[in-house]
């Protein structure tokens, strides 16, 4: 999702900016803008820094927290999982994450697997290895792509084989955003990219 920031950053006020960025999220997603007056007043009439701070603080305390808790700010696109071979008990899910407010993916779970974890495949000097990933930072306005040979959601102890045409369900937990429920279509085992 091309979610370019709409305004310039406020020097030294990144948390305020994050807060205001959160307020701009609903229109990006097609919903109504909550209290546009607050945002406009904050930017158009900053008569002095004190007024601005008060408005920003109010906006943060009153609006950002409930908005963040109720609806996710992180958007998930192009989710897919690779089909498993007969007898294979592990799988991988890939996706693209974007957010207008910097956040971190800190947890994954799936009803289709006994356990789900964030892993990173690393390749170097003709070697490959897989390591645990505690969190995946997602910078505001930038895409984070979970793709083959990189970060992926590893599904372990799959409860059923992953067959093309099915969907795998994954719940994503973030530092700030509400959690996101993802339905990832299963692609053939030979696939290396999401469905077109």
């Amino acid at each position, binding site marked *: 999702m091309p979610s370019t920031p709409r305004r310039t950053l406020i020097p030294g006020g990144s948390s305020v900016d994050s807060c205001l960025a959160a307020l701009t999220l609903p229109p990006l997603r097609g919903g109504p803008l909550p209290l546009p007056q607050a945002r406009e007043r904050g930017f158009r009439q900053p008569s002095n820094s004190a007024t601005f701070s008060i408005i920003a603080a109010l906006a943060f305390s009153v609006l950002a927290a409930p908005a963040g808790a109720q609806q996710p700010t992180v958007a998930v696109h192009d989710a897919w999982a*690779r089909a498993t*071979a*007969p*007898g*294979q*008990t*592990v*799988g*991988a899910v890939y996706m693209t994450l974007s957010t207008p407010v910097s956040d971190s993916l800190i947890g994954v779970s799936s009803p289709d697997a006994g*356990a789900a*974890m964030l*892993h990173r*495949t690393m*390749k170097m000097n*003709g*070697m*490959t*290895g*897989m*390591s*645990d990933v505690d969190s995946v930072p997602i910078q505001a306005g930038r895409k984070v792509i979970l793709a*083959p*040979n990189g970060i*992926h959601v*590893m*599904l*372990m102890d799959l409860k059923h084989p992953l067959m093309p045409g099915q969907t795998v369900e994954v719940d994503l937990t973030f530092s700030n955003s509400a959690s996101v429920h993802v339905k990832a279509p299963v692609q053939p*085992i*030979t*696939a*290396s990219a999401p469905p077109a």
Partner: protein
Amino acid sequence: MATRQGIVALIAGGIVLLGLAVAATLPRLTQASSAPSIGGPFTLVDGAGHSVTDRDYRGKWRLMYFGYTHCPDACPTTLSDIGAALDKLPAAARQKLVVLFVTVDPARDTPQVIGAYARAFGPEFVGLTASQAAITAVEQSFRVYAARHELKGGDYAMDHSSIIYVMDPDGHFVTVLDDSLKPADLAQHLEQLGA
């Protein structure tokens, strides 16, 4: 006295001959030691539980990749890339080629598991396993690195070499290919090799 001179001459001649033989062999020895010897005879077990050796694949180009089925990301990506590369080869070339997927995790990869897994990538794919001792021997002859490391939650992953070995129809090592190559590039390399 004559006998003694004869013996001396014989020894001297022997030394000269030996020297010549060493001189003749030396370039080959140094050549052999500078070029890595990769691959060699092996006896492993296929998906049907049958014992197979390297000789069973004589007459075919052999691509070999070492991995394991509990690898959800790197291994299927490489195997599907190889499959996509084979799709780009002429049918005749494809028939002269076999892809051996050898496990580095024989504890979990039984013949049935590795066999079915490899076959899912195409008819040319053969999954092979064996006892840990036999797998270690193959890893050593191909200079494959494989090491277990623990993951959270009691599971484990294998770090392993991720290169594709190319062996010619006589069973000789030809080259290695980077498994990060795109299928089109992989296919081009295989065509250039005459595979």
